[in-house]
């Protein structure tokens, strides 16, 4: 099964969940998602999602100067982001339960 298609629908909530654990910058979010097992996640998808969530008012952002490389733009959840995550979490568990039941081998 093509997991990139599945990923599209849940990337928002995945990104929100990662940022809920800890504030993070673009490339770090990609890395953490891949470490969590979402190997197929595209760099551009994550970057675009971050910018979109930020524009939609779900994220805060701040620049952290770095000694060894370029300045990094960190993202974190604000109240709106946390509310979105809470709703998405509930929706997801309902959806996942439904799919589990549906796909249960008989």
């Amino acid at each position, binding site marked *: 099964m093509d997991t990139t298609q599945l990923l*599209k629908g849940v*990337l*928002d909530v995945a990104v929100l969940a990662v940022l809920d654990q800890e504030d993070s*910058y*673009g*490339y770090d979010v990609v890395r953490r998602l891949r470490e969590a097992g979402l190997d197929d996640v*595209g*760099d*551009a*998808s*994550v*970057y*675009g*999602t971050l*910018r*979109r*969530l930020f*524009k*939609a*008012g*779900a994220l805060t952002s701040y620049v952290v100067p770095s000694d060894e*490389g*370029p*300045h*990094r*733009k960190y993202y974190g959840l604000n*109240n*709106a982001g946390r*509310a*979105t995550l809470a*709703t*998405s979490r509930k929706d997801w568990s309902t959806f996942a339960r439904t799919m589990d039941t549906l796909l249960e081998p008989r």
Partner: protein
Amino acid sequence: MIATPVTEYAAAVRAALADVPAADRAELLEDLEEHLAEIDAESGESLEARLGPPERYAAELRAAYTDVAVEKPRVTAWALFDRTEAGIAEFFEQRVPEHPGVRAALRDARPMWWLLRGYLTAYVFWAIIAGEDRGPLPDDPGEFLCVLLFAGASVWLGQRARSGSPRRRPIALVTALFSAFAIWAGLVFLSTVDLAGGASYYPQSYAEDPVESRFGGTINIYPFKDGKPLTDVQLYDQDGNPVNSPPLEEYPMIPGSRPVAANVYPKPLCYQTDEDAPMDAVLRLMPVCPQTPEVGPVPDATAPPAEQSPSPTTKPTAKPTASPTPSPTGRS
């Protein structure tokens, strides 16, 4: 600016997104260079090898950025509307049996509901415009057009929702208001429509008056004994309440008659016109009102002496005055 792999790649991505509105593009690509530099720094491979061609990167970026909007947790009026609509839908969804036959029947019945919705709305709409009681069927071109218009709009909205067109909130709201209005109109329709097909003859207030409903079509009572008419008969019902027929404009007091208590019969009433006299004049006991109106109640010498206040319980209710009221209408 010195061209580096990062700026080259970023420039190619920007070029591929040239059609995105400037404000959006600036917002999206705000820190693209920093982001790419991060990737470049962490791996030995070239950016192309890691990320694919810039055009594909741009396409992926575009898809991710213009994806479905993130849920706004602010409680807007629209969000409230969405939730209400979803709640109502779920309420009915849970109550309709899962049986496929039932579901299919309901689905088939939907166009009927659309028509009914349009018709009911048109009915009330037209009643408001025309400002009178309407019959259930359209009976003039304007009314017909009104029904056609509303039914058409209703079917269009229903068809649109069914065909799976993307839900647009304004249209969903119009549909919801349409439905709510039609349901309300249906209740109005059931409570006011005169199925005989026209404006009801009596004003609403009389039809709701318990006295009027008790009297039905009776306007006056002429008691007889041994073939001779009785006068000044007081009537009471089983509870001892005086039997009072309501005053009606169409039947004024005979000019010059003395006022009697409301439950004394026969009342000195008369027909205002004699239009339908040839039909039932033979059996009719109520006289026709004199054509030349007299002014004020003139004491009648032939009348028996008045018995003042026949019963303490009778209230001197409002009665048509002895002076003839100018009423243009006849009986029908």
